[in-house]
């Protein structure tokens, strides 16, 4: 099977080279059959890479340890569910996933534009196949997923226990889908610049894929945050980690692009800016992959080795140089067709929103790459921490949320002061009431949180007013019942009202971030059974220890050999609130040197947190049992000395019983965070709104609207 995989990679590289040649030849000579053949090369690439991916997936599912990557990242004790996902936990497998997703999304994009933009699409095809060729070359020469060893090892090392979490099944494919989708607008932008066709059609073709990239990237980022919160055992969802930042940067520039492209669509303005944003988004997506896969910066999310740095730097260099050359050489055709009518217009607010988003991206870029910059300039690697990021990003986030409330209540082209006064009344009142209530409730000691709550209230007031007024207007025209009028309003104006829902989600999300980061109570304490800790208004009592042995009994289904934990009773003012069961899983290290018993629990210990969540607060617990306590360490030492490998598991049962009978003090981490659930809820609202905005209008509806507008235009002309 490995041979088939290697043949697939070679064939994929040949297809890429052929497709690039055919597309460029077709574009240069106008011979359509070659452009079409190039486009079909992308379909063929998708077929071949699907076969290659299936070969690797099968090897993981069949425990074929002859494959080096399977032996390094999977094992028989890894549950099947996680074995399937282990493919992309390795360097080689994730490169294959990247190339495979790129081929699938590129095929879809090129299929959808097969009857349009033939000249642009031919160049875009060559660029997309160029990306494909890059990743396939890496897999053939640097990190092949189909390298084998003979004889095959009897057992694999196993999947990193940190990755044994349900979200990890979908987090990387979502993030990589976002990254690969970011390259499609980039390819079309470059194609449009090369073909000198930066018109409305280019925007139309690119918009949907930019939106899809934004959506997938956002879902991936949120799933990563959820994984960090629920799995990593530190109780946070965002640490300004290099890899987290790398995924956020293209999302920010894509958000800016999705706003500013509307100005180009309507007014023919900001062409240079839009093209630059698309190119920056695609380049940042490649840089994100580079950070995960090159090992150039330290990150808990970086699973790559240090071998891929140079090829990635070369690719990024070519992308940046090519982008600058194309934009500069085509600057004449990118001139704006109009100027801003008024500073009091939605265009102006969108421009301000773009400035804030790009400033955020720049701050994050600087902080993320500061270790590399400082090393290059001074020879020593220095890094900046979360306080540095917070200092700059918090005010920018406040401005962003505020602008997301101002935009919806201001008209396109120009608004009058009288109208603005009338439209701002309800949102300002909403913010003012929130301010008074919160100050009265004693929240004033956290000014940034207070400001964020008021800004969010402003957004909710503004968007709520928009929905109410829109539905009332619709009702007045069509005579529909209020809920029907509201639904019809959203259905007929999906982009506008889908976007407004996204703004609501962003406000809700930032309320969760502000509340949970400003009003969190955290305690780390060693407890023995029966003793308690006080966290905020809550009392957490260590009731009794728990212990399970063998992967089949592992409550978290992660394949741990031994799991030690606790039952924790949570109460507030004497009333029972919840019963929590945090545990820590111990895994087989596969290192015989640790002894027959020692290696069974010598792998990485992973915390399985337990949490009671609600809309108002999360009570979060993690435990670190003291497995090196003398009574337990003695069992391991004696077991190592006396038990053969096939009987060593008996010692784990003994170890568990001893832990239950005579538990040593355990280290607990308790956190009470208000409103964390608002972050996930806000995320869901954002992506629900995104889906509404991206959903295509039925063609029949579009046609009716077009005909009606045409009739109105004709009437308007007649009046003139």
């Amino acid at each position, binding site marked *: 099977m490995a041979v088939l995989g290697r*043949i697939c990679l070679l*064939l994929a590289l040949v297809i890429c080279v052929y497709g690039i040649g055919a597309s460029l030849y077709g574009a240069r000579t106008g011979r359509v059959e070659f452009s079409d*053949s190039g486009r*079909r090369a992308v379909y063929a690439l998708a077929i071949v890479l699907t076969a290659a991916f299936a070969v690797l997936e099968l090897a993981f599912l069949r425990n074929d340890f002859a494959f080096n990557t399977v032996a390094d990242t999977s094992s028989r004790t890894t549950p099947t569910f996680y074995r399937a996902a282990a493919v992309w936990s390795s360097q080689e497998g994730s490169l294959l996933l990247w190339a495979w997703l790129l081929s699938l999304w590129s095929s879809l994009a090129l299929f959808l534009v097969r009857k349009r933009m033939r000249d642009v699409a031919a160049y875009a095809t060559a660029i997309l196949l160029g990306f494909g060729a890059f990743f396939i070359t890496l897999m053939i020469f640097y990190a092949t997923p189909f390298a084998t060893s003979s004889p095959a090892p009897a057992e694999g090392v196993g999947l990193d226990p940190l990755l044994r979490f349900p979200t990890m099944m979908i987090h990387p494919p979502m993030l990589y889908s976002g990254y690969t989708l970011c390259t499609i607008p980039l390819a079309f932008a470059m194609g449009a610049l090369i073909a000198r066709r930066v018109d409305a059609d280019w925007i139309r073709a690119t918009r949907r894929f930019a939106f899809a990239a934004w959506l997938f990237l956002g879902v991936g980022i949120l799933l990563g945050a959820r994984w960090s919160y629920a799995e990593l055992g530190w109780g946070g969802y965002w640490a300004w980690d290099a890899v987290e930042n790398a995924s956020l940067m293209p999302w920010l520039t894509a958000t800016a692009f999705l706003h500013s492209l509307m100005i180009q669509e309507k007014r023919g303005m900001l062409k240079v800016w839009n093209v630059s944003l698309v190119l920056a988004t695609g380049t940042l997506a490649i840089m994100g992959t580079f950070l995960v896969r090159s090992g150039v910066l330290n990150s808990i999310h970086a699973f790559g080795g240090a071998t891929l740095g140079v090829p990635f730097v070369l690719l990024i260099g070519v992308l940046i140089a090519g982008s600058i050359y194309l934009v500069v050489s085509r600057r004449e055709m990118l001139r704006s067709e109009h100027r801003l009518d008024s500073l009091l217009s939605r265009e102006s607010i969108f421009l301000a929103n773009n400035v804030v988003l790009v400033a955020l991206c720049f701050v994050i870029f600087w902080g993320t790459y500061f270790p590399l910059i400082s090393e290059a300039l001074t020879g020593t690697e220095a890094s900046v921490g979360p306080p540095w990021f917070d200092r700059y990003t918090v005010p920018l986030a406040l401005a962003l949320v505020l602008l997301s409330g101002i935009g919806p209540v201001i008209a396109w082209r120009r608004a009058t002061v009288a109208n603005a006064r009338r*439209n701002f009344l309800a949102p300002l009142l909403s913010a003012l009431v929130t301010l008074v209530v919160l100050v009265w409730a004693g929240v004033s000691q956290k000014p940034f949180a207070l400001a964020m709550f008021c800004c969010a209230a402003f957004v909710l007031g503004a968007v709520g007013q928009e929905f109410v007024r829109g539905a009332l207007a619709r009702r007045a025209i069509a005579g529909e019942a209020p809920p029907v009028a509201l639904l019809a309003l959203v259905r007929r104006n999906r982009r506008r009202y889908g976007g407004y829902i996204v703004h609501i989600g962003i406000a809700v999300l930032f309320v969760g971030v502000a509340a949970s980061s400003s009003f969190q109570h955290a305690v780390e304490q060693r407890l023995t059974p029966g003793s308690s800790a006080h966290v905020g208004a809550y009392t957490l009592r260590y009731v009794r220890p728990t212990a399970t042995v063998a992967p089949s009994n592992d409550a978290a289904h992660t394949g741990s050999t031994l799991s030690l934990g606790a039952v924790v009773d949570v109460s507030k003012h004497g009333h029972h609130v919840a019963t929590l069961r945090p545990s820590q899983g111990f895994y087989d290290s596969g290192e015989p040197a640790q002894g027959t018993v020692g290696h069974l629990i010598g792998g990485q210990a992973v915390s399985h947190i337990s949490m009671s969540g609600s809309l108002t607060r999360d009570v979060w617990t993690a435990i670190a049992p003291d497995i090196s306590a003398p009574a337990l360490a003695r069992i391991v030492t004696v077991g190592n000395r006396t038990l053969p490998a096939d009987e060593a598991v008996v010692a784990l049962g003994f170890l568990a019983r001893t832990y239950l009978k005579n538990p040593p003090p355990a280290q607990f981490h308790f956190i009470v965070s208000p409103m964390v659930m608002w972050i996930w809820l806000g995320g869901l609202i954002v992506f629900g709104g995104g889906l509404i905005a991206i959903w295509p209008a039925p063609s029949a509806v579009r046609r009716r609207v077009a005909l009606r507008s*045409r009739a109105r235009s004709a009437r308007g002309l007649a009046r003139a």
Partner: protein
Amino acid sequence: MILACVLLAVVLLVISAPLRAAAAGDARDQDHQSPERAELEAAREAKYREIRDAELDLRTGKLSRADYESIDGALRAEALEILDRLQALSAADGPEADED
């Protein structure tokens, strides 16, 4: 090895289809939109959306009646200009070209 050969055959079939069709003299370009028409249609869609947005801005109180009438008049004139150009293109291309 058999699987690899099957894969190779599929790839060759997929990639070479347009070249084989061209060699056989099949006309393949009939369903393709001209760049100018595609651009005008995209501009027309954007203009229709802009007209609807202005109308919605009026109804939701974001535009005064006077501003709306001035903006709407300008947008309709721009829309008609695009429609005229599309019509001229359709006339030049023949009767089948106007899709709407």
